[in-house]
């Protein structure tokens, strides 16, 4: 499901925030932090950066509670108390080349930005339709809010067009949501997300509630529409297998941080972070050889307060001395496949484990630990586009410094 329009960036292509390659970046999030207020605030997103290029599919994977949905809400500025964004920046580049600072938008600016530039398919898209009004009416609400000069007939015509586009009978504009099946409702929601031809669609677990057959149909539909309309997608799900298939690039989140950032096609064969490896081992590969399915023992850490060292250390079979004391930085692995980075001491030359690194029985990844020659020196290395820049080891740095921009 790779975007035909997007050429994968070469491994060495220079791209800082203002690099020449930054031109086709539509959405850039830097060091986003979100807290849920409470007696001990839960820091659900801890400095996540990503770049979304025009026309590509960026997958965000991770188990429940790792901050995926919170991140999506933060990016769309939909967070409600007690959640609040405590840091970071969000910039958006429209199709016309206008640069928008999402955090600086006022209420009306935000309102007009929403849906016309960036739309959202919700986690439970089944419930995202107003149960008491017709589908057509809900399309009309969108047009009335964003295209005030559209007449009633034009609104109706466009709603019918959109329904047909996702393979639903146009006369369904007169139906109420309860008269549609789950898959149809999902299609309606997707049609609605595309109503204003946005630059970006964020899909938060859009197919989780559907059975695999319908899920497949919907995904094919999304892929077809994306090729046709050229929008970018941030696809959030816990289903890593699905993401490997549909994304161009993939970010794996754990405990509110991105732990690995990789081209989707190569990730299955070369996952660098032990957590990604664990995720890959937890579902069967239909095409590959038979192997034992294993989950990841333990559960994610408590996100209230600071985490000393690597958040994954307690569940990691490769954990060694620095993992419990020093937080790993997201470092570029310098692999040929494209921008690829991981936050793991196993890949940090400064913390290379002793020669006889623990054996990993059952690990499918052939080369979790790249040869020393693969790893560039951290200093002075150009960071490929789409890779959050690694932070220099800050004094007293906990996991909070992770991904911070210099």
């Amino acid at each position: 499901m790779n975007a035909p329009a997007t050429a994968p960036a070469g491994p060495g292509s220079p791209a800082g925030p203002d690099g020449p390659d930054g031109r086709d970046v539509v959405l850039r999030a830097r060091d986003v932090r979100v807290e849920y207020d409470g007696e001990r605030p839960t820091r659900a997103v801890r400095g996540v950066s990503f770049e979304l290029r025009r026309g590509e599919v960026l997958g965000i994977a991770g188990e429940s509670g790792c901050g995926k949905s919170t991140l999506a809400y933060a990016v769309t500025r939909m967070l409600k108390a007690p959640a609040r964004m405590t840091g970071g920046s969000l910039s958006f580049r429209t199709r016309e080349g206008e640069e928008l600072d999402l955090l600086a938008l006022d209420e009306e600016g935000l309102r007009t930005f929403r849906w016309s530039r960036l739309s959202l398919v919700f986690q439970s898209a089944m419930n995202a339709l107003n149960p008491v009004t017709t589908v057509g009416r809900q399309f009309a609400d969108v047009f009335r809010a964003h295209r005030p000069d559209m007449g009633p007939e034009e609104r109706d015509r466009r709603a019918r067009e959109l329904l047909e586009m996702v393979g639903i009978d146009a006369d369904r504009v007169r139906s109420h949501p309860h008269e549609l099946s789950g898959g149809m409702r999902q299609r309606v929601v997707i049609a609605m997300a595309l109503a204003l031809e946005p630059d970006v669609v964020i899909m938060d677990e859009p197919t989780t509630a559907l059975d695999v057959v319908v899920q497949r149909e919907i995904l094919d539909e999304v892929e077809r529409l994306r090729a046709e309309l050229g929008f970018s997608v941030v696809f959030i799900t816990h289903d890593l297998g699905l993401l490997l298939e549909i994304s161009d690039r993939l970010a794996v989140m754990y405990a509110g941080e991105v732990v690995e950032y990789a081209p989707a096609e190569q990730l299955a064969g070369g996952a660098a972070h032990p957590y990604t490896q664990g995720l890959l081992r937890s579902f069967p590969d239909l095409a590959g050889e038979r192997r034992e399915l294993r989950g990841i023992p333990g559960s994610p850490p408590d996100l209230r307060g600071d985490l000393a060292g690597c958040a994954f250390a307690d569940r990691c079979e490769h954990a060694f001395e620095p993992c419990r004391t020093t937080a790993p930085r997201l470092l570029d692995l310098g692999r040929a496949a494209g921008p690829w980075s991981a936050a793991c001491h196993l890949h940090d030359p400064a913390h290379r484990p002793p020669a006889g690194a623990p054996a990993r029985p059952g690990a499918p990844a052939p080369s979790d630990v790249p040869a020393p020659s693969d790893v560039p020196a951290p200093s002075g290395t150009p960071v490929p586009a789409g890779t959050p820049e690694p932070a220099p080891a800050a004094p007293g740095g906990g996991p909070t410094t992770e991904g911070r921009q210099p």
Partner: protein
Amino acid sequence: MRYILRKLGFYLIAAWMAVTLNFALPRLIPGDPVQLIMARQSQLGPVPPGEKEALEKMLGLGHGSILSQYGDYLASIARLRFGLSVTYFPTPVADILRSSVLWTVVLVGTATVISVLIGLTLGTLAGWRRGTWLDSLVPATTFLAAVPYFWVALLLIYLFTQVWPVFPDQFSYDPGLDIGWSGEFASSALRHAILPALTIVVSSVGGWMLGMRNMMVSTLSEDYVSAAEAKGLRPRTVMLGYAARNAVLPSVAGFAISLGFVISGSLVMEMVFSYQGIGYQLLQAVTNSDYPLMQAIFLAITFTVLSANFLVDVLYGFVDPRTRLAR
């Protein structure tokens, strides 16, 4: 349309059952109710000829088989012939009903509707702006709802007729005036209605507001409301078209129930204000063992409850499409 017809059929059956029950009740009264009633009537004045037959038909106690009695009973009800009242002998019950029902329906009905409208509006705003000053008003209104409403009525009478004598303290209009479409009469009726209406509004608005506010808060966390916001709809559209539109549904059902109690529920208020509505007449009927009047009032209450429920059922079909099952 089929939805409405089905509902109508259901309510016709319910009405028929109520009427039939009313027919059966006098047979369960020990002794001869007709003799009892006529004995009381004769104390008050000469009983006109045919009154015995009218009463028997009304109570369904005439001669002939039980079926023909039942037929006579239905026929007299259809023609609104309920016999003569004992309390206001020899006025026909139908006349008393006619003159008192309208007072109650207009006063209590209007007050209920006003109370619902104010309550729902305030509740919507309080839920939408949760945690603001408006929201902190909610406990105060529930306190008002917790106070017995005859007490509120007495307090209002004390304040507005004794401390500041602005409003009359009893009756539904100035007894010195003739009933008619004159401006003088209308303004007198209005002035007499304000305190009773205020009593009803003050004591019931808190419940509507609290219910609506809580439904608003839970509706606001629904996905379709977040989605509406993500769609960049105007806040007004989100509040009214998405949140309040769904939050109001339980209140619509509650409104049906309270409309049904418009006639019967106003008894205490009409007593306190000596308002000549149907509650006041019911009280008179009970104290004077006025069976014909009582029966007619019971029937009137039954029919208002049923027709109010029917109206709201139809309304509910419009506001919540999910209840319109088969088309």
